[in-house]
């Protein structure tokens, strides 16, 4: 055997040994994981169904005294509180009214909120996520500040869960922090919009002031989320600033503002949207056409018909659908249009009516 063969044989033997061990470990893991998962799943199914039954009794039937509800649940289920808490947190989102109050009272009685607050500073991001999630689920409004501070967390997931939790609390005083978080991290914009929308009309003054200031200073590039949130809230106080936003230089903001004006369904927005309909960008024209359709702007029929005839496919289709929503006047205008998009919209409308 040559000298070079010695190390080749050594490596090949090592690979064989490692592969044999790896194969053995893989086989053990494959079957072990499957068996253990099966056992855990069947145990969890049993436990969960027991816990759910008891919780349903308590939340819907109210057969227990509030004071000793948790103790009674422990006694009946015979499990640690952690399992009950996990199930309860899953159920809370689907509860309303008295049942929801009972569930939250039960969680507070057993110190769930205090434990969650304690875990907000935990080392592991998963723990911090879980804590923020819990505070959101139980709508612990007293802890808005703690959640707001989590918006600076180094973990993107923690920040995201925190903004969702703030939305669940619905406290409009946290709107500035939410807006700042959305501006700092574009990937959170969707969660920020949802959170702001849940804060409701209370957040509108801050949102309109911030958006107006951005437009005035030409710093509106990161603000489409404000327009989306304002549209989602649907407060008429936002009309003026949204109309100004439709005319701003930033395309993203213009599109978002046009859609938001459609959500508001206020006729005061028609002039601004009609101007937007004549712009060159396809997405803006689509948004403006859809908004005009939602508002029911009969005055805009000539502009919409022009878009049906000359616009690109997407805006022509949106404009045709918008015109159709305007009732008999829109329909007769479409009848007179030779555009294939008008023909398509009328044909689909006719099929709908036949049905």
């Amino acid at each position, binding site marked *: *055997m040559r000298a070079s*063969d010695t190390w*080749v*044989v050594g490596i*090949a*033997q090592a*690979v*064989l040994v490692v*592969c*044999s061990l*790896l*194969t053995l470990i*893989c*086989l053990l*893991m*494959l*079957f072990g*994981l*499957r*068996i253990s*998962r*099966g056992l855990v799943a069947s145990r969890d199914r049993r436990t969960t169904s027991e816990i759910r039954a008891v919780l349903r009794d308590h939340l819907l039937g109210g057969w227990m005294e509030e004071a000793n509800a948790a103790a009674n649940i422990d006694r009946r289920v015979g499990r640690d509180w952690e399992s009950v808490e996990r199930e309860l947190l899953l159920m809370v989102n689907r509860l309303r009214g008295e049942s929801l109050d009972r569930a939250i009272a039960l969680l507070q009685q057993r110190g769930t909120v205090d434990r969650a607050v304690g875990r907000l500073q935990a080392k592991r991001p*998963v723990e911090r*996520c*879980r804590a923020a*999630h819990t505070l959101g689920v139980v709508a612990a409004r007293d802890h808005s500040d703690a959640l707001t501070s989590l918006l600076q967390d180094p973990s993107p*997931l923690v920040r*995201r*869960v925190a903004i*969702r939790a703030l939305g669940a609390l619905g406290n409009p005083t946290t709107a500035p922090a939410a807006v700042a978080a959305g501006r700092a991290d*574009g*990937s959170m*914009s*969707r*969660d920020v*919009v*949802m959170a702001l*929308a849940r804060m409701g009309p209370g957040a509108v003054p801050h949102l309109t002031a911030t958006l107006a200031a951005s437009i005035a200073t030409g710093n509106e590039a990161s603000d489409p989320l404000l327009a*989306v*949130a304002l*549209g*989602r809230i649907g407060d008429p106080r936002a009309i003026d600033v949204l109309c100004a936003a439709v005319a701003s230089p930033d395309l993203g903001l213009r599109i978002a503002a046009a*859609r938001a004006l459609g959500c508001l369904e206020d006729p005061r927005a028609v002039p601004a949207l009609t101007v937007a309909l004549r712009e060159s960008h396809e997405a803006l024209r689509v948004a403006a056409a859809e908004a005009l359709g939602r508002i029911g702007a009969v005055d805009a029929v000539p502009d919409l018909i022009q878009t049906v005839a000359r616009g690109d*496919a*997407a805006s*022509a*289709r949106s404009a045709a659908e918008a015109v159709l929503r305007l009732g008999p006047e829109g329909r007769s205008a479409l009848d007179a249009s030779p555009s*294939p*998009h008008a*023909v*398509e919209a009328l*044909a*689909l*409308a*006719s*099929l*709908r009516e*036949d*049905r």
Partner: protein
Amino acid sequence: MTWVEFASAIIHAVGLGFAAYALAINLSFVVLTGLAVRAARRQRLLDEFAGFDAYFLEPEPLGVSILIPAHNEETTIVSAVQAMRAQRYPEFEVIVVDDGSTDRTRERLIETFGLEPAPLVVGEGLPTYGPITGTYVAPGGDRSLALVTKSHGGKADALNAGMNVARHGLVCLVDADSLLDPDGLLQAIRPFHDDPCGVVATVGAVRVGTGCEVRRGRVTEARIPRGGLTRIQVVEYVRSFVIGRAGWSMVGGLAVISGSFGVFRSSVVRAVGGMATDCVGEDADLVVRVHRWLADRGDGGRIAFVPGPVAWTEVPADRRTLALQRRRWHRGLSEVLTRHRSMLFRRRYGVLGMLTLPWFWLFELFAPVVELLGIAYLVVVLMLLTLEGTGVVPIDFVDWSIVLLIASAALAFAAATTLVALVGDEINFGRYRSLGDQARSVLASAQEHLGYRQLTAWWRLRGLIDAKRHAPAVWGEMKRNGFGDSAPQPPVEKTGTR
């Protein structure tokens, strides 16, 4: 050095070269498995705390047009459309493009869903070759389901026609022989919402649906089929289409999105010119062109892999169909890699140019050549061994014990790599629930390397030759048995050329 010593050293060195190749390819799969496990862990956390049910409250849900190109798919098309229509997502339409089927694909769709003719506008954004012959919508002018019939022009042409009819900003490309998980669309769209400026395309995992329990277009119980050929394809898909892609996605180098399940921004697809009709691997080509387009523009953008949702696809159950499929796939890969060879080792194309494409050239495109040369090498070595002592070949010309050791190590590593991928899949997803299924997957991971791999290497080599000769792309006969969901029907021979 005598010529005998020289020849012996050459044989020795070639053997080591094959061993090093096997070591590198399998090691890369182990690394990809590790990355895939990390990706799945990250996804699980996201699912736990940032659940996707909120999309139903989404202020501006991104609309999706699901495009299903179909050519002689009468056995699977109804299940596929049912699965797509059952998707949990607030805003989507399904567009089936019947690409000149000669069977009852069109009639089955019209009868089952009660489609009515409607003059839909077919845009001219993307060029198509087969003229449109009709457009239909669901009853009551409902555009959530549309059928476009056209003359035969190939899958890419059908997809381009579908995109010209699509209304929404996202297009989801799925095969007619695929079933999507009910939350598949919801999860595949999430990255677009999470990173609206960055994500331009997403891809879900593809698994083998053959043998699974299917009810009303949904896979209700994942099973590993008993048939040897289909069983091996299950582990092959797990390694390549589930684990491999998740791993590549983690390093930002996802190169191939299967036609079975991919979502793109329609503006991006239009910007790159739609699907290439002159390429067999149109899906992979589209992805590489999108990567290229993004890098050339220099303003970011990425393609994300979503490991959770699954497109379940029917795989060939007989050797002839499998041979045609693999030949076509490899030909497509060759065309795509050759077409985009200028991206190789170019920093501007990032991980794709520096790592993924070189990897595909080395370990995918050339793999059948190396594997078959390896077999030829073993045959030569065996012949030399039998000739030793006869005077033709001197004694100890070849050290058979070393050759055997190296071959065994390479084989053991390949089998262990597949098992590692199966464990990664079990940790991440645990889709196959019965112990019998696990046993079958273990068996298949061993079987794969004893005959199957060598056969596919031969078919892939023929695909490579087809690409070099620019032979006409022939779809050939594809036997479709369906998913066992619809009323039982005899297998249908699918024929056609593109």
